[in-house]
């Protein structure tokens, strides 16, 4: 169960997170579970040539925070204002 997936940003940074956390994003989820033999589901690696590292990092944090929140721990998720725009676009892309 404790499988991991690797998310790679545009700069080539690799973020290794739990599969469960990654599934928070609908897009990543369908990527990984799509019936066709897409490379992503086979390798467990997803590249995002459009998303920068900082943003991707924030996104990973968000995944974990979301899991926590759904388990009951209600904390706040702080977003630095300068990241907001890019973050929103990424969110739209990732359907999160």
């Amino acid at each position, binding site marked *: 169960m404790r499988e991991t997936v690797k998310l790679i940003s545009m700069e080539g940074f690799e973020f290794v997170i739990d599969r469960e956390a990654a599934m928070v994003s609908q897009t990543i989820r*369908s*990527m990984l579970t799509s*019936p*066709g033999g897409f*490379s992503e*589901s086979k390798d467990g690696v997803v*590249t995002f040539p*459009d998303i920068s590292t900082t943003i991707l990092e924030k996104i990973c944090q968000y995944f974990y925070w979301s899991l926590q929140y759904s388990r009951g721990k209600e904390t706040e998720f702080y977003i630095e204002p300068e990241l907001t*725009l890019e973050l929103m676009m990424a969110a739209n*892309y990732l359907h999160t």
Partner: protein
Amino acid sequence: MSNNNHNPRKKNFQIEAFKHRVVVDPKYADRTWKILEHAIAEIYNHNASGLSFEELYRNAYNLVLHKFGEKLYSGLVTAMTAHLKEICNSIESAQGDSFLEMINRKWNDHNKALHMIRDIVMYMDRTYVSSTKKTPVHELGLNLWRDHIVQSSKIQTRLRNTLLELVRKERLGEVVDRLLMRNVIKMLMELGELVYLEDFEKPFLDASAEFYKGESQRFVESCDCGDYLKKAEKPLAEEVERVAHYLDEKTEAKITSVVEREMISNHIQRLVHMENSGLVKMLVEDKFEDLSRMYTLFGRVEKGLATVRDVMTLHLREMGKQIVTDPEKSKDPVEFVQRLLNERDKYDEIITKSFNNDKTFQNLLVSSFEFFINLNNRSPEFISLFVDDKMRKGVKGSGEEELEVVFEKVMILFRYLHEKDVFEKYYKQHLAKRLLSGRTVSDDAERSLIVKLKTECGYQFTSKLEGMFTDMKTSQDTVKGFYNTHPELSEGTTISVQILTTGFWPAQPTVPCNLPAEVSVLCEKFKSHYLGTHNGRRLSWQTNMGTADVKATFGKSQRHELNVSTFQMCVLMLFNGSDRLSYKEIEQATEIPRSDLKRCLQSMACVKGKNVLRKEPLSREIGEEDCFVVNEKFVSKFYKVKIGTVVAQKETETEKFETRHRVEEDRKPQIEAAVVRIMKSRKVLDHNNVIAEVTKMLQGRFLANPAEIKKRIESLIEPKKLDLADNKLLIRKAAEIRRLCDVQFDSSIIGVGEICKAVICLEMAASRIKLNVKELAIQFGCVRIITTVQKSLSAYKERFLASLPVSRRANTDFTRPVFTAAAFFLCARKQKLKVDKHRLIEVCGTSESEFSCVLTSMMDLCFEFFGVSKEKKDPKELNSGQGLVDVLPKKRRHDDSSDDEPSCYKREKKMEETKLETQQELKVLA
């Protein structure tokens, strides 16, 4: 979203320009689209493994983002259509059996591809499609598939036929690839309800109907009913299974109904009436399994059970009618009833076992039995005889519980009877005979049956029967008491007496009989003992119902104890005195009536094994000149010999007729009582309703004949044939008394005729209308004047009598209510109490004129009590007594009673006009 600069919130921040600049040119769109198109093709060719989802997703995302959603969508459509066309071709070219396989395979592929494509263009699905209201991708895919493949003309028909062919094969017993079928049909279902219904279900149902029509026809011609039913069960189960395996569950109900229709409803009539194996045969032969199968199968179909019910009812009624009207059967009532019980048991069992104890069938059993039991109007008698037989002999080889069970069943039969009162009459007779001859097997059984009857019909039904039991008990105590007080009598001949209360026991005429000396002495002693303790009663010996135990010595030393009837005992005792007696001598000595004597002699002389007497000449018939001798050679195995028991028999024709007649007579007052009861509560009711209500009320006892009811009503309306049409109150009272006397006891005993009875009742009614001052006072609400009235009344009486010449004094009758009423009225007036004069007149049953006469007379004579005004007359001056006495009418006249009952009120009005006339009348009478 193109290059827009985000205004920095803080001045020292600077947002960097976007890293990825998207070139907004159509070429980009085309390029992106090409990539996607290529990807789709790969997907359809099962080459998707090399692709990167993310890349494709991003491309699709960008296209939509840059407002090329339209292009993407339409491109998608075209691409998919093209691919599907290819697939269509390949499917069409598939050979024979692999056609279905091919479809299945291609369908699976298509689904997979569709899924992938959908994932890739999910963004478009989310945004573009919802904003432009186009069909989402998944649905789009299905629709395309449907349009191009399933509904392509060639494939469509071929698909349908293949499927149906497979189904047919399976029905004929071949094994078919069910999984394949399931998948294909699932495909159809997924394509939409309509597709499934149109393309598959309808033709499926039609084909099935055809198939089963053929099948059922075949079966019906070749099998009998039972087999057919077995065969019919199978398809039902089969089809349900088929549906479970590879059809949509909604089809289940439809296919079941098709099968039912074809196999069952179309053939119901034929099956049920099938000769040699139809319903009737099954019923007769107790084919439980077949019947229950029929029940379940026909139960599914609308009119199935109704048909079964109808046929069964007919059959039952026919069969019942045969049993009941068969003259052979009527000869032995016990057999008759037993047969009925058996039949009932049989059908009850059938209904419980095969028909699931269905209420409707129970009801039809009840109604059929009711129908034919009442066809034979001797049924009540026979049932009573059956009970009698069982009570005397018990049920073979079994104890109390068995008897209980039998009686329960008899009660059920009893409920079917319409003429329960006929049964009551017979039962009373038979019970009396049983009790008196001491022949009941079990007292408890008797009592429990009576309790059952009571619960069924109410207290009235069984009150007399219970009275009979009480009598028996009391008699036992009385006899014990008798012997206690006369201990010397317990030596020698002993008697045991049963004292029967007249009302409870069936009426018997007393038959004369000379009892031998020893016996009569005892009887007298007992009688005096009894009358000593209960005076005011009258005892009469019923010699025709008694029995006696006689010790006899035959020949040298043959001693036997003979149990004989009282008559026979008298005859036998005669032989103590002389050896040889002629018929005439016997008749003279005993004074027993001819027919009874002949019968008891016959049973003693002519019956083999019981011939304690020898008759000369040796013939069955008793002639006047025959002589009788004691049979010295009488032998018997037993010490105690029973001779000539009085067994309850079927009645002879005359007896039957008589009993029936009596029953009819008894019914009349009951009908009348019912009518009166109903009218009292309803006051006004139309004719038909009256008849309906009366019939309902009397249902528990007998089925009332409407013509009879009508006659009774008429007899109630028309006044009694005596000349008192005026006074309805009196007549009503008399009628009531008359009815009471009819219902309460069997008035034939008193031996009074109809007219006599009526007169007696009238007399009683008339004399009952005595007025009590107290009653009057309470009725009119003036209690405080009671004493005054009484005083004044007595004073008036004195003075009136004083003024009469002596000769006439005896004739006056002051108990007549008129005087009380008049005195009451006057006192009340004096005290200024309001008393309704007319009501008073009505209550005391007098006439206006008479009343006023009495008033005047009283006023004149007893002024100080009544008088208000100054009028005062010297008593002596009055036309004393004369006019008054004569005025009191000896015979009422019909004043103005042409219409019904003008009450006092109306008469008052008329009176005022005709006052002159009345006074003239008075004068005439005087």
